[in-house]
């Protein structure tokens, strides 16, 4: 039970910091909307909806990367991470708290971005939305671990996309498949499988990347 309390406290801390500083969410929102506008000009007339769905996924992944790049910055700037690692709680709780907070930001950005996508480009059905949610979980789970690794390196902002993009390819396949394939459920299964495996792996390995 204490584990869940720790996770809740850590998530609340991140949400409160964001509420006061407003560093991440406005940036993600503005970024995803600007990207959608750029896509309008990048897509020639008559390209069709499928291309728009593909680009939506590019926008989602890059918005998530933007959020993830900021995820550990407060911890590093004020030396909070050392304190968290020394705290008498399971270290994986730090990862889970960060993942949930990043997921909350990403979903909040999409609450604005997805309706905008529907208005600008093409409709999204229920399977596509389920795909977005499942892929969000996967990218935040893997991404917050990778961001923790990148944050302790010399080239953190440059490194994060390089680490995450090859790992995100199955998510993009799943997300695009769920949006455009008539058998979208198969892609949801792929996404769920990905989430399960990589969430457990990230959860189990987080301790190793933050301890000295």
């Amino acid at each position: 039970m204490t584990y869940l309390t720790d996770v809740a406290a850590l998530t609340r801390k991140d949400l409160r910091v964001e509420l006061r500083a407003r560093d991440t969410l406005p940036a993600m929102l503005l970024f995803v909307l600007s990207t959608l506008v750029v896509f309008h000009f990048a897509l020639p007339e008559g390209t069709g909806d499928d291309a728009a769905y593909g680009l939506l996924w590019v926008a989602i992944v890059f918005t998530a990367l933007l959020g993830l790049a900021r995820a550990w910055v407060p911890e590093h700037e004020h030396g909070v991470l050392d304190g968290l690692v020394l705290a008498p709680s399971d270290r994986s709780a730090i990862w889970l708290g960060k993942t949930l907070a990043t997921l909350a930001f990403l979903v909040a950005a999409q609450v604005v971005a997805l309706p905008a996508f529907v208005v600008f480009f093409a409709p999204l059905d229920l399977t596509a939305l389920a795909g977005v949610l499942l892929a969000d979980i996967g990218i935040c789970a893997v991404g917050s671990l990778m961001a923790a690794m990148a944050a302790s390196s010399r080239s953190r902002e440059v490194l994060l996309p390089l680490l995450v993009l090859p790992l995100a390819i199955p998510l993009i396949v799943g997300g695009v498949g769920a949006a455009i394939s008539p058998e979208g459920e198969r892609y949801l299964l792929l996404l769920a499988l990905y989430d399960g495996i990589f969430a457990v792996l990230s959860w189990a390995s987080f301790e190793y990347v933050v301890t000295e």
Partner: protein
Amino acid sequence: MSTSLIRTLPGLAALAAGLMGLAIVLALIVAPEDADQGISQRIFYIHVPIALTAYFCFGLGAWKALLLLWRGDERYDLESYVAIHQGTIFGALTLITGSIWARASWDVWWTWSSNQLVLFLVLFLFYCAYFMLRFSLEEGARRARSSAVYALFGVVLIPISFLAIRLAEDFIHPTVFTREGPQMTGTMFATFCVSWAALTLLAYVLYRVELAGKRLDADLRELREVLL
């Protein structure tokens, strides 16, 4: 590494060279010509064993990474890194030989319809990022563990990516080319096995040579620090 292990290296290297020579002779001269693809099919005896060797190296790297996290012994860090380094070299060779084969049989340098080739491109990018990660972290226990975690993600990514790429075929485009030719004859299979053994041994020798060199380098640096 103990000196007796280093002493076996020249013998192993000679064996690997001999086997490679035999494999080339078998692949180019002894194995029968493929009725369908002609001479270009002979690259199969090099391309597929190289790809399998690359998987083997990535697996070895992940295994050593797991041992590092499990036992906390620093020497596994270098072993994991060297295995992945060899795997990336063989992965790059897979891409090159695959591209040559695609050019010879389908008249294109690259095709997205060959799942294995696409998978290798993803893996190649992934393992290049491994080196970026490794070289931008401060040397020490933390770098060793972060690299190990990333290496473990790699072997999990292989089956998931393969599954994803198979599924993506449906909406990207259906398979046009297949490699399912007629079944291999006995000589073809024997050639394939010899070539596979040769390349695996070659990778192992390279792994050991690089490891010995890196260890010597580290020892030398330590000595210099003690002396100066």
